[in-house]
């Protein structure tokens, strides 16, 4: 088994220490950082996403894989890595739930996106400003409450009014495909795993 296969397994199984060790070993053996990300980490998170989609993995398995992924990525932070695109993500104004947003952020990061996490209770203005500041390709919004969903519409409008071509993905418990169409969001992700495929398809990546 190659070292990248072992790294992939370590991330899938959530073994943070092993992921760290194997990443260090891969770097010391001269492997390119991009290759470590693509063939080790992203490959692992793709498997994790699929297992989550098929209910083999649940939230804890996804989060410990994310923890192992982050441990590995931290060692690569000084290295040159090509990102698929930049995503600004947050939970909308008035909503303090963060778990859905965190899961999506983890999956997007694992898939090779650069993720700018604005946290919770994020206003339309903050989404727009962050999209400008980071030249974001995507804005991803999460809402867990019907009462806060409405601000997604405001953000879509604000991005358009600002003249930005940033694509918008939405998700969360009360959010549906038809709501996404109603507010003219570009994509709807019913769960964290599908956010990656939706994001990639919007960027034709």
């Amino acid at each position: 088994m190659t070292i990248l296969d072992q790294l992939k397994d370590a991330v899938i199984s959530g073994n943070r220490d092993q992921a760290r060790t194997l990443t260090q070993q891969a770097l010391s053996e001269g492997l390119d950082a991009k290759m470590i990300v693509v063939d080790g980490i992203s490959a692992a998170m793709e498997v994790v996403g699929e297992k989550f989609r098929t209910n083999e993995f649940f939230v804890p398995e996804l989060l410990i894989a994310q923890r192992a992924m982050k441990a590995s990525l931290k060692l690569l932070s000084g290295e040159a890595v090509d990102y698929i695109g930049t995503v600004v993500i947050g939970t909308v104004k008035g909503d303090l739930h963060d778990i859905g947003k965190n899961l999506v952020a983890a999956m997007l990061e694992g898939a090779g996106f650069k993720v700018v996490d604005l946290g919770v209770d994020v206003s339309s203005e903050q989404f727009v400003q962050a999209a400008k500041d980071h030249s974001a390709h995507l804005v991803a919004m999460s809402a867990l409450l019907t009462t806060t969903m409405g601000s997604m519409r405001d953000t879509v409008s604000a991005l358009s009014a600002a003249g930005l071509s940033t694509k918008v993905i939405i998700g969360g418990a009360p959010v549906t495909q038809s709501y996404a169409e109603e507010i003219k969001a570009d994509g709807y992700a019913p769960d964290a795993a599908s956010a990656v495929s939706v994001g990639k398809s919007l960027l034709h990546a």
Partner: protein
Amino acid sequence: MQGSYERTRRVIWGERPDRPPLFDLLMNDAVLQHFNHGKPVAIGDDRTGAAAIIRAIDGSRAAPFSPAEERVDYREDGREVRSLRWTTWEEKRAYGSSEEYRRIKRQHLADRTDPGAGPHDTASDERCLRQLEVLTWLGEDFYYLLSPPHQNLMGIWSEVGLEPFSYYLYDCEDVIVEQLEWNAAYACRWIEGLPEDTPFDCAFLGDDIAFKGGPMVQVKWLGKHYFPRLERVCAALHAKGIKAMYHSDGNLNSIMDGLVGAGIDVLNPIEICAGMDLADLHRRYPKLVYAGGIDVSHLLPFGTPQQVRDAVVKAIEDTEGQILVGSSTEVFDIVPLANFLAMRETAMAYRF
């Protein structure tokens, strides 16, 4: 006509009522004002709020009866507690590491009274006394659920947040299970300590363990560690002649066998938006009673009154009347009064 208490009791105990009862949480200023003779319910005025709720529906469970003052407070350890009008947010407790979590939690468990040490004086317990006090406001004809302690997996994960909980589940699963065991053992003692003449005949076990996509944790983990403890709590309730209403948001389809096998009698709130289907559930579990089921993510806030009426009739017929009609979580402020009234009036007019 039957009273609210009798009507609701009949459904929970498997009998036919005169009409479907209404069971809900009303966290809606317009609805409370409507049932308070057109006057708003003031902040903190639980008694007036309770009086309005009694006029509106047949039964409910422990929840705010009036809006709260919006404020920010701080716990002794500095954690923020944000009170909003109808809900409260508490900052999660942070532990430095899994090792620290294990150490502190083990110490907490050791410091608490041994759950196996003799009967619990529940009648003098603050939690019990408070609920009995609320019962006096609500009167004898309102169906109000007992809120006992229980296995409380939600309490364990929500104390720290789902992300740290997931790490602790991986790094120190034994401590998670020990807390679950302590919670269940204490709950059983508390229930066993209820006086023989307790006025409650149904208990609310609120334990959010699922999302839209399904359970938070592995089904097999729940089978090994959670359902057996839920079963003990349900058995303790049944031994006291009390039915068990189990609450979790989210899609519970993959764990319904476990829940029903553990002995739950009523399922709440049936989150339609998450994929819970009353007709399918009733077919699979014909003896189970349902409380809720009228979608509050989209239908109640944004639908028309006629769509609400149609959904209520469908819910009653899909369950063959084994339902306490109500929202799929609570009737919060975004639900227009007209839609709440449509739900209410349809249930009140329905005859079997």
